[in-house]
């Protein structure tokens, strides 16, 4: 399930549905929160979330998300319609849509040809399809990734660790440094 931690009291608008229900509603229409055929939760095209998205299951975002996204042990897919303005922490991240923020993955990041990505990419494996629009930095150096993500690129590393060790805009691991969201924009 996903937690909603609204920053402005206007966290989710989905035709009256609250973001808390995302992931539990199945087959609820083309644009609502639901599960895909593969079982991953889906934030549909009409949904806007301003706040923090957290969870322990795979997620597809086709809507608009601003804030943070933390799926420590799970895979995140940002679909072609998806727009995410957030730092993202996940086991793996695949981007077909638009992101503005730093992407941390303990396993891999895939930037597809249709993606528009602004921010830093930090992961042991990063792939970048021809045609993608990307501005930012790519960090695959094992030592730097381990410092940024947590212990040994482990999928179980805590997000708080990752945030604390996240490189700042200077790519220096910055213990106790405030989140540097948007460092490469």
């Amino acid at each position, binding site marked *: 399930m996903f937690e909603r931690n609204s920053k402005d009291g206007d966290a989710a608008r989905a035709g009256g549905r609250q973001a808390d229900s995302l992931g539990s509603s199945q087959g609820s229409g083309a644009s609502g929160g639901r599960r895909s055929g593969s079982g991953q939760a889906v934030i549909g095209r009409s949904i806007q979330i301003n706040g923090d998205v957290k969870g322990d299951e795979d997620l597809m975002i086709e809507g608009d998300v601003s804030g943070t996204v933390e799926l420590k042990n799970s895979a995140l897919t940002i679909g072609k319609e998806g727009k995410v303005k957030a730092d993202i922490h996940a086991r793996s991240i695949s981007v077909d849509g638009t992101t503005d923020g730093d992407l941390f993955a303990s396993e891999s990041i895939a930037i597809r040809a249709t993606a528009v990505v602004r921010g830093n990419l930090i992961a042991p494996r990063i792939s970048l399809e021809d045609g993608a629009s990307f*501005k930012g*930095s790519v960090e695959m150096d094992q030592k730097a990734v381990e410092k940024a993500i947590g212990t040994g690129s482990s999928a179980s590393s805590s997000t708080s660790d990752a945030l604390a060790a996240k490189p700042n805009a200077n*790519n220096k691991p910055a213990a106790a440094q405030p989140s540097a969201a948007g460092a490469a924009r």
Partner: protein
Amino acid sequence: MRGAAAALATRASDHTEQVFSFKAPLLNRLLDNSEDPERREVVLDLGRASQSLLDRLIAARPCRVEVADLATDGGLSSITEIDSNEADDRSADRDLDRIRGLLPEPSDEQLNLILCWDLPNYLTLSALSLLIDSLSNRIAPGCHLHMLIGYSKREMAAQPGRYIPGTDGNLSQILPSDELAQAPRYSPEHLGSALGNFGYERGVLLANGMQEFIYAWPDDEPSAERSF
């Protein structure tokens, strides 16, 4: 942009994108040979990101790659016409801020390699000088700067290309159209005047008429001591 490489041109079915391929030996040397394969390096790619480039760089050294993608989203056009001869100090400062805004957020780590591709052809020397100036605090001793300059022909592609280094040593040049524009035909001396303390290291005339240049920052001069 024609010549020997023209035979390799292909035309995509639904647009006029053109692809050429040629050898760029100096680039290959920079990508594949690190002075110390264990030493972490920071590379600034002013062009568009490519997986091939990432693979080549990361195979040769631990590194961070910063991608500016200057040629898209109107970034380059906003600085193309900068001419400091006609500008007052205030507008020069604005120009510098504008250029900095187009680059990835700077890090504390100093740059070891800057890949300009063909972008300098589309900048005035004043704009090129400001671009280097905007990076001045980040240039490591011994930093290399690589560029491809239209030199032997009067015309060049009207817009910058995308460049994808292949594993076979060939560099693919992808041009968005077949339109041509007058080439500034910068000489090494012209370029040297715009590159601060970067000194000419090597140049090679390529089969497509472009000149491939490497400039190097002095080994013993940290960027912090540099003045423009």
